[in-house]
Structures are given as structure tokens and as C-alpha cells.
């Protein structure tokens, strides 16, 4: 009988998910097996390292918090499953990574897909599920291809399917491609989309743990969370807690974009100072560009000034202390010379485009605030408009089924809070002080878009 000891090399002392030389062919099964791949699953399934309940407790004790943005403890989420579930429990991996500035899951799926698959097997084992869906956003074509190929490989090699390693445990993974909607990253929106309906969040309660995909109890977790379960199962709770802080344990992937020398995805321990992330991992700002502002965790979180940014440690508490959120780890570095109004306008265009249109405040509000910011940017606004913008953003908050409206309101409010003088400068000057050029397709002054059914003949009839 083969050994059921697990091995899991850690690169550079802290790289768990990206524990291979970047840029090499790290995704095939052979490469993953070299890195101790599937030994953890074997140790749990065959070696009975943990009973399912113990594995949930281990994940709970590890302090792993959901890596999708909300930071909800993963182990706690699993324990919300009803004791007597109605129907088979489902695991859904949320790979609909669409938050602007976030591209960390993509790296896992493209470069290390098997760690996710192994994480799925272990998670399914823990929550007592035999089927798992990986919902990947439609635009991630390479990721979908790699994931699909990896799942096939894993099936062929017996790491997936029925009776894995003769342990009697069955786990099937379905890779599902979304159609590219931000809202399908919201867990109930994702479930609706997975069921084949229009991706619109469901009203809660019931939460997915009780009534999820196809009406079955469902656990929805982010790619990074599930992938991290593999290492937690290998090293135990304390092994994972070796990194990070008391309340933010483990390592985290950060996707850094903006005017830095080496933008990209980096795995660092939680609590790693942003300053070090910027200077060491990313090689500092581009020459001659100062750090103006920072969005720590994807476009939805409040923005902070460059000054504050340098004080931030990359963990949940330090971010909260500086009035922002760690979010999904989509670090957007904003350099000197960037017009913050324009930056906000770009973000709001995204939220306007992606609002599902279900709840009134979000449906009407996202478009409205976008148009006001557009007007400020082109210098067509009056002084009262900034307060008006703030008021509308405030009104959108907390009044909707899901948090998309909040996600549009938070950056709006924080951009005004932090960079108010820049908004005022736009209004005073009557144009953008940064001399921005506007591409035609933005259609800034018109505000409208071509209509699908516009019928000029009936334009004046009710």
C-alpha cells in the first residue's frame, strides 16, 4: 500500500498556492505531482487523516477567511449547512472573478489548476458533497480551457470520479462557463446563472446553505479559499496560522495593477506591509511617477491616499483601521497625474453596465451617478453637484438585494471624501484640470446609447 503521508513544498518560505517557478509549465498533472500533488487528498481520503467534521474544524481553526472579498470565515460558512440537509449538498467554486483590478483566481486556474481540484475534493469531503461546480467567468477562456483539461486529467488519473483511491468517496467536478456578468460573482446570482436563468441575485434568506443551486444546500466559495484548503489539510490549522496575523491568517494573493514596475499577482503572508509589496515584489513605482492613491481590494472598496497607503498592512484589521477594506486583493495603484474624477467615472461606468437591473436604487442609481460624474469630468457641473452625488450614493447604499449598489456607492463616497478638492477644481475650472482626452465612444454629453427598438416614427406618441 502506498504511503499516505502528504508532502506540500512551500516556496520562498510563504508561497503556498504559487509554490512553483512562475513562467514554467506548472499546470499539467505531472508537474503538480512533482510538487506533492494529491498526496494531501490521499492522506485524508485513504489515510483518514481527518474525519469530515475534523476537517471543517481544522479549516475553522486555521482562520481562513473567504478570499472573494467579504472575508467571511470559510469554516464557519461550512458549518451553516443544515444538519439534516434536504437533498444532496453541492459545492460551487466561484471563479467568476470580475471585480475590476482583481485577477488572482485566474493565475491559480491557469498555472496551478490541480491545487484547486484537490481543494475541491477535500472541501467536498469535509461538507459531505459529491458534486462540485466550478463557475468560471466567460471571458476567462484560457482559464476555462486549462481548468477543463485539468479536470479531465484528474479524472483519467483517478483523482476525481467515483471511489477515489478506493476510499469509497466520490467527487465529480463540472466546469461551467459563465457569460461574463459581474453580478454572477454574487453567490446567489451565480446560482441562478448556473441553473440557466438570468443572473440576478436571489432575495435572502434562505441562504444558499439551505436553498442553493437547484434547491439543494449549497456552499459557494472563492477559488483561492478552496485552493487554500489543500494546504490547510496538509499542514493543519497551526501550519497555516504560521503566516499572517491573529485575525487574518495565512497567505493571500494580491493582483497589483497600475504604474508599478512589475505589476502582477504575488503571494504574500497576510499583514505584509503594502510598502514592501510595492517596493519588493512590484519593484517600486514607475520612474518619475509618485503614488497618488490606492485601492486595496478591488474597485468596490474605499480609496485611500498614497500617504495612507504606505501605512497599510495587507490584512483585514489594518485596512479597516485606515477606512478601507482588504476585499478581494485587487490592488489598484494610482499614480500622480491621474484624474480621480475620471478614475471614478471609469469605475462607475463599470457598475452602471453591470447592474443587473433588479432593484430600483441600483438600477436607476448607478446610471445616474455615472452621468453626474461624467458631467463633473467634462466641466459641466455646478457646485451643488458634488453633494448631490454624495447624497445619491448614500441613498443607494443598503437598499438593495445584493451589495452591487453598495459596491458602487462606497468608491463614490470615498473618492469624494478623500479627493474632494479635485472634484471642486473640475467645477471651478469648467473642465478637467488634467487635460484628458475623451474617446468618442464614451458619448459623454449625450448620455444615451443606441436604442434597440427606437422607432422614430413613433417618437412622440406615448
Amino acid at each position, binding site marked *: 500500500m502506498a504511503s499516505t503521508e502528504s508532502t506540500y513544498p512551500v516556496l520562498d518560505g510563504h508561497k503556498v498556492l504559487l509554490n512553483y517557478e512562475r513562467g514554467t509549465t506548472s499546470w499539467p498533472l505531472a508537474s503538480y505531482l512533482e510538487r506533492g500533488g494529491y498526496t494531501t487528498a490521499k492522506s485524508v481520503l485513504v489515510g483518514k487523516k481527518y474525519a469530515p467534521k475534523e476537517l471543517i474544524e481544522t479549516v475553522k481553526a486555521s482562520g481562513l477567511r473567504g478570499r472573494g472579498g467579504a472575508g467571511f470565515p470559510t469554516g464557519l460558512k461550512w458549518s451553516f449547512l443544515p444538519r439534516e440537509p434536504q437533498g444532496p449538498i453541492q459545492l460551487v467554486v466561484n471563479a467568476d472573478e470580475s471585480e475590476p483590478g482583481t485577477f488572482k483566481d485566474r493565475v491559480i486556474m491557469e498555472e496551478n489548476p490541480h491545487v484547486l481540484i484537490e481543494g475541491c475534493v477535500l472541501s467536498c469531503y469535509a461538507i459531505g458533497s459529491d458534486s462540485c461546480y466550478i463557475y468560471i467567468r466567460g471571458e476567462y477562456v484560457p482559464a476555462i480551457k486549462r481548468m477543463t483539461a485539468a479536470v479531465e486529467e484528474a479524472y483519467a488519473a483517478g483523482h476525481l470520479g467515483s471511489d477515489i483511491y478506493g476510499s469509497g468517496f466520490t467527487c465529480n467536478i463540472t466546469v461551467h462557463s459563465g457569460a461574463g*456578468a459581474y*453580478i454572477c460573482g454574487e453567490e446567489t446570482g451565480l446560482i441562478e446563472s448556473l441553473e440557466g436563468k*438570468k443572473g440576478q441575485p436571489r*432575495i435572502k434568506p434562505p441562504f444558499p446553505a439551505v436553498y442553493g443551486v437547484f434547491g439543494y444546500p449549497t456552499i459557494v466559495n472563492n477559488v483561492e479559499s478552496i485552493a487554500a484548503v489543500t494546504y490547510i489539510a496538509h499542514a493543519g490549522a497551526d501550519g497555516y496560522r504560521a503566516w499572517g496575523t491573529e485575525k487574518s491568517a495565512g497567505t493571500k494573493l494580491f493582483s497589483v495593477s497600475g504604474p508599478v514596475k512589475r505589476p502582477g499577482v504575488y503571494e504574500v503572508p497576510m499583514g505584509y506591509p503594502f510598502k514592501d509589496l510595492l517596493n519588493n515584489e512590484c519593484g517600486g513605482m514607475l520612474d518619475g511617477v509618485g503614488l497618488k492613491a490606492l485601492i486595496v481590494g478591488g474597485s468596490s472598496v474605499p480609496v485611500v491616499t498614497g500617504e495612507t497607503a504606505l501605512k497599510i498592512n495587507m490584512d483585514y484589521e489594518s485596512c479597516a483601521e485606515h477606512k478601507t477594506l482588504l476585499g478581494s486583493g485587487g490592488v489598484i495603484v494610482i499614480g500622480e497625474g491621474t484624474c480621480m474624477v475620471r478614475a471614478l467615472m471609469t469605475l462607475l461606468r463599470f457598475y*452602471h*453596465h*453591470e*447592474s*443587473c*437591473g*433588479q*432593484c*430600483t*436604487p*441600483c*438600477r*436607476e*442609481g*448607478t*446610471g*445616474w451617478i455615472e*452621468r*453626474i460624474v461624467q*458631467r463633473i469630468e467634462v466641466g459641466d457641473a455646478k457646485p451643488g*453637484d458634488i453633494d*448631490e452625488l454624495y447624497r445619491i450614493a448614500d*441613498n*443607494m447604499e*443598503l*437598499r*438593495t*438585494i445584493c451589495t452591487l449598489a453598495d459596491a458602487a456607492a462606497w468608491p463614490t463616497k470615498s473618492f469624494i471624501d478623500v479627493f474632494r478638492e479635485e472634484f471642486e477644481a473640475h467645477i471651478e475650472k469648467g473642465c478637467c484640470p488634467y487635460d484628458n482626452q475623451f474617446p468618442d465612444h464614451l458619448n459623454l454629453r*449625450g*448620455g*444615451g*446609447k443606441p*436604442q*434597440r*427598438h*427606437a*422607432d422614430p416614427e*413613433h417618437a412622440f*406618441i*406615448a
Partner: protein
Amino acid sequence: MSDQVTLTIDGKEVTVPKGTKVIDAAKEVGVEIPHFCYHPGLPVDGNCRMCIADVRTWNARAEKHFPARRPAVTCWTDAEENMQVFTDTPEVKKSRATVMEFLLINHPIDCPICDKAGECMLQDHYMGHDRKRSELREEKVHKPRLVEFGERIVYNGERCILCSRCTRFTTHVSKTFDLGIVNRGDRAIVELAQDSDFDHAYTDNVADICPVGALTKQDFRFKKRVWFLKHTDGVCGGCSRNCNTVVDHDRAEVIRVMPRRRDEINEHWMCNEGRDLYKTLGEAVRTSAPIAKVEGLATAPGWDAALAWAGEQLAPQKKNGKLAAIASPWMTNEEALVFTHLVTKVLKGQWLDVKDDVVDGYPADDLLHTDDHNPNRNGVIAAGCVPGKKDGKDLPAILEACAAGEVEVLLVWGPGLVNHYDRDAAAMVEALSSVPVIIQITDALDELSELAALVLPARNWAERNGTWTNVDGHHSRFKKALRPHGGSRDGFELLSELCVAAGGKPPVKTFKDARKKLKQDPDSDVRDVGDGEFSFFKNQSLYRHHGGATEV
């Protein structure tokens, strides 16, 4: 645990069954929570966010009330034991004003040319919860207008607030899956499914439940401002379902017929055929006074002479036993009661049956349509319009007897005997020609009226009070909506006088007594409103005021 929960809403305590939504519980204590997307007949969607209230749940362990982390929509929140709901706090009011503002920024506010104006929930809630000027300085979002959904419904995307009531109706009630919301965000619109013609029988309901003027009925478009309409409780006679309706009329003309909520009969819905029934009112050829075709009586004898003559013809039949009577399933229960009394008690007649007034029609379905296209067969039979036990003759037997010359007096209610009865019309006319005296009491003239010795004009369904009994035995009461045609008389009155003229006594004196005698369920008088669908009843005074001003 009991299945009842007690909670307080604005300080008022209310006990409701478990699973009741807070918005319904609030209605119990007279607190109306404004809403758009919520409809008692549809699954909850919770998208309009208008019904947000301050809901505090009781935490037994902490012995404290906790507010919801996200403000709760009361249409989705289940009432819980010891819950506290506040619908009147400044935050709740602000929340409503906020939602109103968001709904109105892209709304065209074309109320002056909108058919819904006056019964529009957006208008009502604007008056109640917003009353602010628009802060929008941007151009509004433009969407398609005048999109035809089938032949009966017109969609205006700009007025639409995307509450999804119509799509939920076609998905969950009519189960035809015609409508859906396409596109995202503020570009979203309602669209007709590609393979749908939207031509089923229940399409007009989507316009009824539309809280704004986005879906309008071709039949009602630009026809009448709603504040000119008078609303009378009606019952649809299109089939034996007896959908409860509101007959909207103005100046002796029915303008439209809308469904009225009656949970055990039609819930909130009604079919298109029933809505169109009022159009047939004007088609009938009617007489405004009795018509006689006999010697010894003027052609237009007047009511007194006509009734006296009829009494003279009928009275001897008590002994002769050569009277046949054919009732109609369009009679009210009260009329049927007197008719039966006249034939079986006063005149001791045994030859009595009910005919079909309407034979052809749409097929029965799962929602409302029934097989019988006459409204009150059940009620008329229950009142006793059946062949007598001894020597009784049913309808075919009566007609045979007519042909054989055995019938001396034939008393017929309503039109339709000649044409709709399942035999050759010419043979029918021949058979009926051999009856010496035919007395027809009818609201519409037909072939039989040519043969009748005496035609007594009665009133149609829009002109009289009464009760019908539907296919499941539920009673529904309707009221007089229109001024009666000419000198036509109410059937109940007319038959009562005929009883006297034939030498007897009417069975009851008043309508009320008739209902008591018929043991009708008390619910038939209940108007079940207050779900926000008939907000125009409540606000009628307000709008009538405005309407009155513009009318001058």
C-alpha cells in the same frame, strides 16, 4: 410551538399565522405599507424596495430586539414572534422617498397622456411619500415605446418600473412564459418571447397588475380618463366561473370591466372574453315596452294591461296543467326563486326546465374558463327550476309537447331558444308556432319574439341587482351599473307582479328575504379589496375633485 405569531406593527399588536409576510400582517391592523412589485396573487420578488421598514427581530438569548443588518423588505420578511416593525420612522420615510426618487428619475412623467393616470401606484406613492421636485439634470434614459405585445397590450418601456409583475404573471399564473425582462441595469425592458404571440385568454391581466402605465390595453387606450369612471361591483356572465368584476361606466355606457379580488372564485384574474362581454350589450335588439301580438290587446299595451292579460292566460293553467316554462341560466337566483314559485306553486306547473342561452364559446382551461358559457345554471337549478317530480317534462319533452300541440301557454325567459337549441331552427319555429300563447320575458329580441303573443322587456346584467351561483357553488352579488333601457322592468319585480296577476302571492317581499330564503353565503356581499390593486377606490375622492374641475 403554536402556528400563530404575535408581533407589533407601529405599536399595534397583531397575531397572524406563521409564514405570513409582514406586509400582510400590517394590513390586518390597518397599516398600509407602500409597495410596487408585491402582489398578493404572485410570488414575491422584492425588487422595488419600496416596502422597506424598520424590522426588529427578537433575540431570546440576548433578550433584546435587533434591527436587521440590511433594511428588510416587508413583502419577503416572515412575521416572527415578538417582532417589532416600525413603518413610520424618519429612516423609513427617507427610504421610501429615496426609492420614489430613483423610480421617477427616468420615468417620462407623461401622466397627462397616460391612461393609467388616476389609478397609478407611482402617482399615489409620489403624493404619499415623495412630493419633491426632480433633481435630475441629466438626460433621461430612453427606451422603446409603443411596443405591441400581441393584439391587446401595448408596452411603453419608459414608463416601466421593471417590477416584474407581468413576467411573474405569465410565468406563474398563466404559465405561458410570454414575457421576460431582457438587458441589464437601466437598459432593462420587458420583452415578448420570440415564439409567443401573446394571444391567450388572460393577457389583459398584465395590464391590470401593471402598477404604472407601462402596459395598457388596446381596448382602453385613450378612451376615458379614469377619474370619470364610476365603479360598480359586477359579476362576469361569460361562463359559469362568475369572476367578480368591477364594471367601470360613465354616462350610461360601460367603458371597461376589470376583475375584482375574490379569492375563492377568480382570485385577482379575469379572461379577455369576459372583459369584452360588455361590447355585446349594445348589439342586442331591445324593446322598451311590452309588445303584444294578440287580439284584444293593443300592440303596445302598456305594462298594466300586459301583465293583466298575462295573468288571465296563466291563471286557468292551474287547473288545465298545460303550462310549460323554460327558465334561463342568465336569471339571477332571486328571479329564479320567484319564477319557480310562479310556475310550481301558483300555477302548479310540472313542465319546467332550464335552457342554454349561449352554447358556443371558448374551451375550458385550468385557470378560469369553464365549459358552461351561461353564468347561473347552478343557481337556477338550486332555486328549483327542474322538471316536476310527477309528470314533469324536461326541455326536449316540453318541445315535443309543443309540437304535439299539448302546450297551451309557454313561458320563456330570455332569448336563444330557437337558434341555440340543438335541433333544426325551422323545425323549432314550426313546433313553437303550434303553441297558442307564448309569453317571453327577455332583455333581447330574437326569433322567438316573432312568435310570442306577449314580449315583456326585462333588464340585462348591467342593469339589475342580483346574485349568481358559480360552478363551485359560490355566490357572487352584482349591482346595477347602468340606467335601465326604456321601460324595461326588473325581473324580480315583474315576476312578483305576475304572481299576483295569476292569482297568487309572491314568495318573498324583498331581495333581502330572497337571499335569506336561498341561504346564500354572506361572503357574496363582501368586497375584498385593500391589496393596493384598487387604490383608485380609496383615492377616488381626490381624483374626482381634479376630474370635476377639468370637466367644466
